[in-house]
C-alpha cells in the first residue's frame, strides 16, 4: 500500500456484493442472465406445451397471456442483454490491453440496477398481477382502462430500473474503448468483438433514453393519471408505438451486433486465418448501427402511416441487408481455405451463419410493406424473430461462452458434452421454428392461447413443441457441462485453444485482477498472432513493472439499486392499497424512502474520495505465474 490507504478487501459473499472488478461483474451478469434465461425458457416450454394440440387447456388463457408477455420481456431484457454484458465485461478490457473499465464503480451500479429491476419485474409472479399485454406493452392495453391490476406497473418500473443499468453500462464501455486502449491499439487494430461492443454501446446510448421516456410516460399514465396514451384524455396510442420502436428497433441491433463480433473472433481463430475483410467488417457494423435508427416504423406498417412513410421505411429496412450480406460473405471467405477445427465453439459459429441468413431473408420479406400486411401478427413473424434472436444471438452467445469459458473461469468445458449441447440445441431450434414460418403463412395468428382442430395446424404445432423440448434438453446438457467443469482443476493454459490471436490469450486464465502485469505494446491487428508469427511467445511490454493502482470495492452500488427497487415497489402501491401514513399514501412514503437511500449513497460516493489501493511489484512476482 504505497499511499498508506488501508482498504478493506473482502472475501466470500461480501467480495461478490462489493466487487468492482469487471471480470467478477461479468460472472455476476452471467449467473443472473443465465438464471433469467432459464426462467424465460421455462415460460417458453409452458407456452409450447399449451400449444402442442388443438383446444388444449394446460394453462388458462389469462396465464397464457402472462407467460408470453413475460417470456418476451424476460428473454430480451433480463437474459439476452445481461449475458451480452457478461461477455463485454469479461473480455473487452482484456482485448484492448486495459487494466480495468473506465468506471469500475458505475459498472457495479449497472449490474445491481439490472438485477433489482429484473427481480422487481418477476416479483409480479408472486403478487399475482403479471403483465399480460405482450412485451411491446402497446397502449391502450397497457393503460389502466384495460389493465387495472398492477401487471404493467411491474413492467414499467422493473424495466425502468434495469434500463438505468444498461445505459450506464453502455457509457462505461464507450469511454473504456475510446480512452483506455493499450499503446499501439489503434481503432483499426481493435478485435472485431470489441468493435461490435463499441457500436452496440453507442446504440444503447442513443436508444435507451427513448425507452426511458416511454416507460416514464406510461408510468405517469398508470400511477399519476396522466393522459399520454389514453385517447379519452386526448392521448395518442400510436405515440407509444413510435416511442417503443424508436428504442425497440435499435435494441435488436444492440442484441445482434455483439453476436456478430463473437462469430468473427471464433471463425477467425478456428480457421487459423486473419478475419477476411476486416475493414469492411468494421464499416458494415457501423452502417448497420446507423441504419438501425432509421427503420423503426417497419414494425408499424399496418398502423396506417400511409404509403409514403411505409415505402421509405421499407427501402431503409431492405438497405440493411447490404452490410449484413457483407458480413456473411466475409465469414464465409474467412472459413474458405482455412485449416478449420470444429470445436464446439466453432460449431456454434458455423451453425450460426446459415441460420442467421434464413432469419435475414425472412426479414427482407417482412420489409416489403404490402407483403407485411399478410405476415403481420402471424407465426411467420414469430419464426422470423426467433431465427435472428435465437438462431443468431443465442448461438452467438453459446459460441462466445464456449470460446471464452477458460478465460473467464480457468477451466475448459468438456468438448464432447459441448458438441452434444450444440447438436440438440441446433436441431431442436430448427424443429421448433422452421415449421412456424408455414404456420404463419397458413394463417395462424401469434399470441393466441389455443386453436381449433381441422385447420391444418396440428402436426406442425406438435413438431414445434418437440423441438422446444429438445432445446430444453440442449440447455440441460450445457448446465451439466458447467457443473462438471466446475469440479475439474483450474488448469487452462494462457492460450488454451493454441491459436489465440488477440490480447486476452496472452495473460493467465482466468485473468488476474489487474489483467496485465505490464501493459502490452500492440504492433498490429491480431496483436498476439503477429507476435507469434514473429517468433515471440509473449507481447512486448510498453512499461516497466511497477505498482498497479486498483479501485476499492464498495457496497454502495448494491444499496443504490435496493433503494430504486423500494421506490418502484412503493410507487406501484400508491392508490390506497397500503393505507396512509400521516395523510400521505403509504406507497409514496415508501417510494420516497427508497429515493432517499439511493441519493444518500450518491452523496456519500461524491463526498468521500476513493483513493483505491496499490498492488506492488513484489506481489506481482508472487502472483504473476499463478492463475
Amino acid at each position, binding site marked *: 500500500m504505497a499511499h498508506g490507504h488501508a482498504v478493506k478487501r473482502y472475501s466470500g459473499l461480501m467480495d461478490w456484493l462489493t466487487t468492482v472488478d469487471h471480470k467478477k461483474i461479468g460472472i455476476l451478469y452471467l449467473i443472473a442472465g443465465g438464471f433469467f434465461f432459464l426462467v424465460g425458457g421455462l415460460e417458453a416450454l409452458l407456452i409450447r406445451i399449451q400449444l402442442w394440440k388443438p383446444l388444449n387447456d394446460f394453462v388458462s388463457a389469462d396465464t397464457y397471456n402472462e407467460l408470453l408477455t413475460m417470456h418476451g420481456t424476460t428473454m430480451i431484457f433480463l437474459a439476452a442483454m445481461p449475458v451480452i454484458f457478461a461477455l463485454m465485461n469479461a473480455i473487452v478490457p482484456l482485448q484492448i490491453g486495459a*487494466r480495468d473499465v*473506465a*468506471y469500475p464503480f458505475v459498472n457495479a451500479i449497472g449490474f445491481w440496477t439490472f438485477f433489482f429491476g429484473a427481480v422487481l419485474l418477476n416479483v409480479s409472479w408472486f403478487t399475482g398481477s403479471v403483465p399480460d399485454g405482450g412485451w411491446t406493452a402497446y397502449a391502450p392495453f397497457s393503460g389502466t382502462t384495460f389493465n387495472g391490476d398492477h401487471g404493467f406497473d411491474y413492467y414499467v418500473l422493473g424495466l425502468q430500473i434495469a434500463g438505468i443499468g444498461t*445505459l450506464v453500462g453502455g*457509457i*462505461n464501455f*464507450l*469511454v473504456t474503448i*475510446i*480512452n*483506455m486502449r493499450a499503446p499501439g491499439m489503434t481503432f483499426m487494430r481493435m478485435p472485431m468483438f470489441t468493435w461490435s461492443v463499441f457500436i452496440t454501446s453507442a446504440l444503447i*446510448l*442513443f*436508444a*435507451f*433514453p*427513448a425507452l*426511458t*421516456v*416511454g416507460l*416514464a*410516460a406510461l408510468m*405517469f*399514465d398508470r400511477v*399519476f*393519471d*396522466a*393522459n*399520454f396514451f*389514453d385517447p379519452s*384524455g*386526448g*392521448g*395518442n396510442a400510436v*405515440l407509444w408505438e*413510435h*416511442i417503443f420502436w*424508436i428504442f425497440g428497433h435499435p435494441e435488436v441491433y444492440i442484441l445482434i451486433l455483439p453476436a456478430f463480433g463473437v462469430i468473427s473472433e471464433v471463425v477467425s481463430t478456428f480457421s487459423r486465418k486473419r478475419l477476411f475483410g476486416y475493414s469492411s467488417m468494421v464499416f458494415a457494423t457501423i452502417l448497420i448501427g446507423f441504419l438501425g435508427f432509421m427503420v423503426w416504423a417497419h414494425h408499424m406498417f399496418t398502423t396506417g402511416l400511409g404509403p409514403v412513410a411505409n415505402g421509405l421505411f421499407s427501402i431503409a429496412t431492405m438497405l440493411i441487408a447490404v452490410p449484413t450480406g457483407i458480413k456473411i460473405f466475409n465469414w464465409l471467405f474467412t472459413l474458405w481455405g482455412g485449416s478449420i477445427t470444429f470445436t464446439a465453439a466453432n460449431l456454434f459459429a458455423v451453425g450460426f451463419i446459415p441460420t442467421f441468413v434464413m432469419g435475414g431473408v425472412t426479414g427482407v420479406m417482412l420489409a416489403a410493406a404490402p407483403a407485411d400486411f399478410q405476415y403481420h401478427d402471424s407465426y411467420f413473424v414469430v419464426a422470423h424473430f426467433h431465427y435472428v434472436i435465437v438462431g443468431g444471438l443465442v448461438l452467438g452467445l453459446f459460441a462466445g461462452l464456449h470460446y471464452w469459458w477458460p478465460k473467464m473461469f480457468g477451466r475448459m468445458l468438456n468438448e464432447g458434452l459441448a458438441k452434444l449441447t450444440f447438436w440438440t440445441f441446433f436441431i431442436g431450434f430448427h424443429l421448433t421454428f422452421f415449421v412456424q414460418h408455414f404456420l404463419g403463412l397458413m394463417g395462424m395468428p401469434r399470441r393466441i392461447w389455443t386453436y381449433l382442430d381441422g385447420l391444418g395446424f396440428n402436426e406442425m404445432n406438435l413438431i414445434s413443441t418437440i423441438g422446444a423440448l429438445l432445446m430444453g434438453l440442449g440447455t440441460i446438457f450445457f448446465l451439466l457441462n458447467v457443473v462438471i467443469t466446475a469440479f475439474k482443476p483450474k488448469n487452462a493454459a494462457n492460450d488454451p485453444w493454441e491459436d489465440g490471436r488477440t490480447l486476452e490469450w496472452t495473460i493467465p486464465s482466468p485473468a488476474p485482477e489487474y489483467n496485465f502485469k505490464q501493459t502490452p505494446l500492440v504492433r498490429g491487428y491480431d496483436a498476439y498472432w503477429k507476435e507469434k508469427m514473429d517468433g515471440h511467445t509473449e507481447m512486448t511490454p510498453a512499461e516497466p513493472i511497477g505498482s*498497479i*493502482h486498483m479501485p476499492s470495492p464498495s457496497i454502495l452500488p448494491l444499496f443504490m439499486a435496493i433503494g430504486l427497487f423500494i421506490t418502484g415497489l412503493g410507487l406501484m402501491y400508491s392508490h390506497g392499497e397500503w393505507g396512509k401514513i400521516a395523510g400521505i399514501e403509504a406507497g409514496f412514503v415508501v417510494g420516497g424512502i427508497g429515493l432517499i437511500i439511493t441519493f444518500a449513497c450518491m*452523496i456519500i460516493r*461524491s*463526498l468521500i*474520495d476513493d*483513493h*483505491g489501493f496499490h498492488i506492488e511489484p513484489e506481489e506481482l512476482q508472487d502472483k504473476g505465474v499463478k492463475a
Partner: protein
Amino acid sequence: MSAHSHTEGQLPHEPEKATLEGRNKILGFWLFLGAETVLFGTLFSAFLALRDQVLDGPKSQELFELPLVALATGLLLTSSLTSVFATQALHMHKVKAMIWWLVVTVILGLGFLGLEIYEFSNYVHEGHGFTTSAFSSSFYTLVGFHGAHVAFGIVWISLLIGQLAKKGLTVTTAPKAYVAGIYWHFIDVVWVFIFTVVYLMGKVG
C-alpha cells in the same frame, strides 16, 4: 494510471484533464449528455404530438404568461454565464472566485426554480392540472423534467461548493466542477428549446 502525475502542491495547467480518471469523467459526461439529448428529444416529440389536445382545459394562448417566463429565462441564461466564469476561475486556479461564481449560479438557479413553481401553481389554479388533458400531461412532463434537472443541478453544485471549500482545487475536484459546468450549460440549452417550442410557439400557434 497514477492519480498524481503533477508535482505536489502545484496544479497542472488544465487540472480537470490531468488524470485519466478526469479525462474519463469528462468524456463519459459528454456521452451522457448525448443520451440526455435523446431523452429530451423524445419528450419534445411527445409534447408536439399532444399539444393541441387541450380538451376542456385552457389553451396555451390563454395560459402562458410570457413576461414571467421571460424573467425566468433571463435568470437561467445569466446563471449559465456565471458558471462559465466559475470554469474560467478554475483554469486560473482561483478557488475563491470559483466558489463565489458557483454560489451566484446556484442562487440564480433557485430563482428560476422558484418562478417555475409559482408559474405551475398559477396554471393549476386556472384549471391546467397534470391530469387535465394530454396537453397538460405532456407539458408538465417536459417542463417538469427540465425543472427536475435544474433542481438536481442545484443540489449537485451546492455539494461541490462544500467540497471545493474543504478540499480546495485538486485533480479530483477539478473534473467534478468542470463536468457540473457542462451539465449546467446543457440544462440551459434545453431551456432555450423549451422557451421557443413550448412557450413562443404556444403563444402564436
